[in-house]
């Protein structure tokens, strides 16, 4: 080709950032096989439940929701990763977003897909799930839109479609690059998806405006989705659930969960695809600052919740909280450590934010703590409701645990497949920065500057 500086560095960038699209290695196949095995085990557990009955779970009266709904809320929370990280950083034009966008957006889609499975898994009669779908039928039946579960269905459908379109939109120019570099069935696939994109100035101008608008539109959808999931609990009369702080509290928890998950994912893909030059300590530094802010917000929300319960000491509500604190003490402490103490303490220090191993530990700990948090919201309230004679307890069975682990494996599998087929880093976004960056002499030294409006 040409040997001018622009073309070579562009090709080099293309090569490095698209290295994940190479034909798969034996290690990749082994990984996929392992994940498929875990998912298959989850399917076995689920089939066992469908054929035998809900008694294979740990649920009972009064704790009629357990690990499945915990998983549901957890995955919906994780799905806020892409939206928040990607949209907000796009809208604020933060340049350090560029290598992170694609992974975050893909995470959103796969997380919400996994989350959407849980309401189907937890049904007592799964095979009649279509009763909840509004379609004209000969009996003139419609589902109940006054129920928060229907709001869930509508919102999650909107979010799945919205975030998939958002992911696709972000990938459009990258798909054109992938199309130009591949042959055979891949070329046909990328060509179809790229819709004939040529990269003309007109196309780019429209694309930019559309990206900004989509980023702005997806944020209210994300906030509303998790608020609606929070309302599943908040609109009930269950003590400990009926709280107005739930929607903002859940949204904050979701952002915390999502940011931590994006950090974990970034570390993994950095290692797996040799992207050390593109996912630098600077990116982790900034994500760490984001984690610090969100963790502070979460801590504030949790403190407010507990403080008002303690001060008013309304007997039934206080009973729920003290039951939780007594029965699940280690879990509660782990949750507080993982969500509050560790992120706030560690993320204050630049050196720790820039350390990959510290970020990995902290981000994983946050998500473990978030899962526990969902559990501690759902189960203790149900265990000790209004009538003491009907109090109960809950512990998950092997079926529920298997399905939840299979959900993680399923998400990982989807992500691994995605990373093999599609560019995992926002290629043209990263290259856009390279093109506009220049070193400018300022005073006694030379500093990097980025050309462009604002």
């Amino acid at each position, binding site marked *: 080709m040409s040997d001018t500086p622009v073309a070579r560095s562009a090709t080099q960038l293309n090569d490095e950032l698209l290295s994940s699209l190479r034909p798969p290695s034996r290690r990749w196949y082994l990984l996929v096989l392992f994940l498929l095995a875990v998912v298959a085990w989850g399917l076995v557990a689920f089939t066992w439940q469908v054929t035998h009955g809900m008694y294979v779970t740990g649920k009972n009266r009064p704790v*009629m929701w357990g690990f499945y709904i915990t998983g549901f809320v957890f995955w919906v929370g994780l799905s806020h990763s892409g939206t928040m990280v990607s949209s907000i950083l796009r809208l604020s034009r933060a340049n350090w977003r560029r290598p992170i966008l694609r992974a975050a957006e893909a995470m959103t889609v796969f997380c919400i897909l996994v989350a959407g499975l849980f309401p189907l898994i937890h049904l007592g009669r799964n095979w009649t799930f279509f009763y909840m779908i509004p379609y004209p039928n000969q009996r003139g*039946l419609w589902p109940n839109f006054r129920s928060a579960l229907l709001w869930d269905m509508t919102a999650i459908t909107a979010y799945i479609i919205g975030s998939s379109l958002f992911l696709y939109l972000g990938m459009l120019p990258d798909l054109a690059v992938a199309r130009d570099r591949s042959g055979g069935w891949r070329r046909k696939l990328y060509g179809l998806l790229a819709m004939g994109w040529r990269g003309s100035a007109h196309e780019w101008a429209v694309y930019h405006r559309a990206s900004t608008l989509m980023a702005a539109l997806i944020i209210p959808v994300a906030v509303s989705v998790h608020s609606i999931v929070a309302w599943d609990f908040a609109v009930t009369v*269950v003590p400990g659930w009926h709280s107005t702080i739930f929607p903002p509290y859940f949204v904050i928890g979701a952002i915390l969960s999502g940011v931590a998950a994006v950090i974990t994912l970034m570390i993994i893909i950095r290692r797996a695809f040799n992207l050390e030059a593109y996912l630098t300590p600077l990116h982790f530094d900034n994500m760490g600052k984001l984690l610090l802010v969100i963790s502070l917000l979460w801590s504030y929300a949790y403190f407010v919740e507990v403080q008002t319960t303690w001060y008013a000491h309304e007997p039934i509500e206080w009973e729920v909280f003290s039951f939780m604190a007594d029965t699940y003490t280690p879990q509660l402490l782990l949750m507080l450590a993982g969500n509050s103490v560790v992120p706030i303490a560690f993320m204050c220090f630049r050196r720790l934010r820039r350390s990959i191993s510290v970020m990995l530990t902290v981000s994983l700990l946050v998500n473990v703590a978030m899962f526990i948090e969902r559990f501690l919201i759902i189960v203790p309230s149900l265990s000790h409701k209004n009538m003491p004679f009907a109090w109960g307890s809950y512990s998950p069975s092997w079926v529920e645990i298997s399905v939840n682990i299979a959900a993680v494996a399923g998400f990982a599998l989807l992500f691994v497949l995605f990373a093999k087929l599609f560019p995992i880093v926002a290629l043209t976004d990263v290259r856009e920065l390279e093109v506009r960056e220049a070193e400018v002499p300022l005073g006694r030294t030379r500093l990097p500057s980025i050309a462009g409006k604002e």
Partner: protein
Amino acid sequence: MEKMTSPYRWGMVIDLDRCTGCGACVVACQAENNVALCDKKEISEGRGMQWLRIERFWAGEYPDVRVRFLPVLCQHCHDAPCEPVCPVYASYHNPDGLNGQVYNRCVGTRYCGNNCPYAVRVFNFYPHTWPQPLDSQLSPDITVRSRGVMEKCTFCVQRIRRAKEEARGEERVIRDGEVQPACSQTCPSEALVFGNLADPRSRVSRLSRSPRRFQLLEHLGTHPSVYYLKGGGREHV
């Protein structure tokens, strides 16, 4: 959209000063309504299927121990928390003031069970069978529920239905005392009284105006159709 009206508003009065805690009502309900037979394992897991439970509370220290019994059944709330949360309208309010449960519509989300503050809704976690010859006892007037479906006390709606049909055939309304759910029919001390609260002269209406009356969890504003009576106003449970 017309509001459906009905001359009936079914309700029940439970006199705790008469209740002996014998549990005959529980057995009668189980027999009348094809309620599943549960073994010790199921019940200890918290998956008992009785539609009506007798709560037992001990008060005082030996030798001055007293026991109080509280039969708890579906309160048929007028502002039932279990009804709006069902995604498929399996739980709904009928014009007679009953909280209805449509078994073949239930998809088993169990949201209603969570939202019932009285915890009177039971879920079929197990697939239940009736070993012979107990299956001959099953009532043909009422469904045998499959697994994965919520159920609860219906004030023996099948009996109300039959009484309504008879009354309609004779072109009159149901008389006071003509229809009784299995529990109130069986109670040896007549602690459970059932009838039409919309008729101010029915026995249940008169008892529901007693100064001894209270309702469970009144502060939640569910407006139950079940009133409890307990002596003197000093010894509420």
